[in-house]
């Protein structure tokens, strides 16, 4: 079974994923639905009204989902839950968090404790990010 790690304020909690969202693809999606986007989706302003957005990574090395997350947070100004799904693993989660994901759905077989431990391996960052705002800017950032 997969585990989803979610942000709850400044805390992150691992939850066994019991309920699978009723994901809708972009072409059938209506405001209020849970929307599952491929990494090459364009950031449509209408997506602001989704109840939940998932971005599905075909591989953990595919950085398109990171840029898409940044655009959803900054251009679309989507403020609901943004969930990373698909082929992700514990060593890329910290990048995802900084790009604006606040839920991380680990594939079956990954160790949730390790994943939670590795969510923030760095106490400071050289560049600003989407999460900076969410974290009340507690971390040092060198360049905007």
């Amino acid at each position, binding site marked *: 079974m997969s585990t989803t790690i979610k942000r709850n304020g400044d805390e992150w909690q691992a939850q066994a994923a019991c309920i699978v969202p009723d994901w809708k693809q972009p072409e059938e999606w209506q405001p209020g639905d849970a929307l599952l986007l491929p990494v*090459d989706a364009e950031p449509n302003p209408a997506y602001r009204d989704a109840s939940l957005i998932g971005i599905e990574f075909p591989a*953990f*090395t*595919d*950085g*398109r989902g*990171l*840029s*898409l997350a*940044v655009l959803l947070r*900054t*251009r679309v100004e989507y403020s609901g839950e943004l969930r990373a799904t698909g082929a992700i*693993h514990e*060593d*890329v989660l*910290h*990048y*995802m968090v*900084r*790009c604006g994901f606040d839920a991380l759905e680990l594939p079956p077989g990954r*160790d949730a404790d*390790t994943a939670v431990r*590795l969510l923030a*391996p*760095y*106490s*400071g*960052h*050289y*560049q*600003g*990010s989407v999460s900076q705002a969410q974290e009340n800017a507690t971390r*040092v950032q*060198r*360049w*905007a």
Partner: protein
Amino acid sequence: MYQYDEFDRQFLNERVAHYRDQTERYLAGNLSEEEFLQLRLRNGLYVQRLAPMLRVAVPYGTLSAVQLRKLAYIARRYDRGYGHLSTRQNMQFNWPELAEVPDILEALASVEMHAIQTSGSCIRNVTTDEFSGAAADEVLDARPYCEVLRQWSTNHPEFEWLPRKFKIAVTGATHDRAAIAVHDIGLRAYHDANGQVVFDVYVGGGLGRTPVIGALIYSGLPEQHLLSYIESIMRVYNRYGRRDNKYKARIKILVRAMSAEGFKAKVEEDWAHIKGGSAQLNPADLEPLQAAFAPPLFEDLDDQQADIEQWRLQHPAFSQWLHHNVVPHKQRGYAAVTLSTKATGVPPGDVSDEQMDAVADWADQYSFGELRISHEQNFVLPHVPRKHLLTLWQQAQEQGLATANAGLLTDMICCPGGDYCSLANAKSIPVAEAIQRRFDDYDYVHDLGELDINISGCMNACGHHHVGNIGILGVDKKGQEFYQISIGGHSGHSGHDAALGQIVGPSFAREEVSDVLATILDVYVEQRIEDESFLSCFQRIGLDPFKERIYVNND
């Protein structure tokens, strides 16, 4: 030089700890081969033909004597007593043990060095002119901007997983020694009419199997927008660069597919959203960096011309060295010195721990404790008082670092090739050695003048063969090692835009390469007008005269 502050030190210590954790999880079987591969690459560790290879970043080629001594120590303690200077101004070690790499990284961190993003599909070490801060033709020292880019690109959350590797080069001089036209992003820094620092932004240049000269997409970008504009370039590339075929994944392919204008439009559409935002570079933030790279406390020295003339008469070999390896300095009484690693019989760029220690000592004695690695794979002492040149030359001779060939035929750029690299089609080091042995007559080589020979063992072009005046590329012909030769490439020089070499024709067996080279040089010597350089001569007469002579015997 830039000195780490508490922030940098903490970050680097956390990075080492993070990588140690990753290594342990891999060795414990909790990370797959493929997962760990991506992580170790981003920490500089390749697995080569014979053993792992660790590529240590030397940001923009600048390092201190203290740092070089640590590299010498690493060579002794963890390697077989030598390191290799790469064409991207980095230092590579060929024999580290995978399990010991975290310890090596810890040793590096103790002298403010690392191997972060020296490999993998991410933003790599930023390179620049090896004579930054010293060159007489420098408009401005680009290193403060290189350091900004180093910091900004380090562990960037959005751009760590690009379609392919990404290389940025910056120059601040009139003569572009950083080869900005053949980088993913090339930046030329200068002052505009109001004295403000601005950048010309080139994008989509590169070597490899599809060599391309970069396109100028922004002329005169104000300093404050440097990071935001690059952020937009990176975002467009990250989103639209091809990921289905690694040979088509570099930004140059995307720029070609969209056209330079189309690419620029896409970048600027994104940029419109962020250029006025918080991503602006403030002069106040740059100040500490400008201060870090401020010129050292030069003394008011005589140029020592009389002594130097005297020494030249006494030591003809010194005179040759002075002519080729010593370049004019901004500051009267000083010179910048190239310590060539291209002695015959030594693989180009290889340096022993003893040589590293010696160079570190000379840097302390003569050059404010500072030195450089050039993309031609040599050491440079940037600020040597001219009164010490003779002593330095004598000391360098004892260490085999005084070969008077900087910029000449025997100062070849050469990738590690089939001796070390698992991607190679052919060996490159023995070709370089054969050429050095064949052309060991100083007078002849000197008479030929400026001539870049660049050798790559496969089309990945780590030896930059496309931009060699003569380029040599290892190819595979039915399982046999062959070499394709091209003429006329260069990476941009005094007012000329960079050009890619033209292939002379069918490739040659290894034994033939030196002969073909001799034929090419014969044609040049016969056809040149007065002191015309090889490149100018080629540009005037074209490929045919060379081609005809090379293949005449084969008809």
